[in-house]
């Protein structure tokens, strides 16, 4: 099993700007998942990208996956104050997801 390593640890932007978060991992994967955690709440599944996919979109979210570099990125376009949260990536290759410490995103109005 492996965990994803998110980068940066923290990110502050203004509303309307785009936010990009990166994830690196070490071994082969079946898929990679991104989650959001609002303060005091549980994690919410955002998007899953399979190992044979390179890019996936969901609303204002865009996820890319580069299996040769063992990395993924999450782009949130036209950010809103409500996007303020921690974002976690989770490489999936076994029977459990192991999470890193996440990227804390702060979006200022």
């Amino acid at each position, binding site marked *: 099993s492996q965990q994803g390593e998110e980068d940066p640890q923290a990110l502050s932007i203004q509303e309307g700007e785009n936010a990009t978060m990166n994830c690196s991992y070490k071994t082969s994967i*079946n898929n990679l*998942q991104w989650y959001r955690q609002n303060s005091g709440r549980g994690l919410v*599944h955002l998007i899953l990208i399979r190992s044979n996919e390179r890019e996936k979109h969901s609303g204002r979210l865009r996820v890319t996956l580069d299996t040769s570099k063992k990395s993924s990125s999450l782009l949130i376009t036209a950010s809103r104050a409500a996007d303020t949260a921690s974002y976690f990536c989770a490489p999936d290759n076994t029977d459990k997801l*192991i999470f890193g410490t996440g990227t804390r995103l702060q979006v200022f109005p």
Partner: protein
Amino acid sequence: DTAVSQTPKYLVTQMGNDKSIKCEQNLGHDTMYWYKQDSKKFLKIMFSYNNKELIINETVPNRFSPKSPDKAHLNLHINSLELGDSAVYFCASSHAGETGSFGYTFGSGTRLTVV
């Protein structure tokens, strides 16, 4: 109609006590998990059950004992609570396919404070 529900939401107790946290999912998922999130937001998996059978047991003290009466429930009992057990405990569930899970659904967490 909460998909994964945990009770209680908050739990304050003294050192040495025994306490339980309950979790129920109504999604029909076959696998359930317990995670512990510390003050630095690091989420650590503790246990996993698939169809009532224990499949993952990470390095967790024996004072922690999960119980799964059926595949929709996974409870966590903690004996002789210690200060270091203070954390937020999350229950989660998932349904696995051939290429991994389709995504986990988390409960809203139980904030345990040991005084």
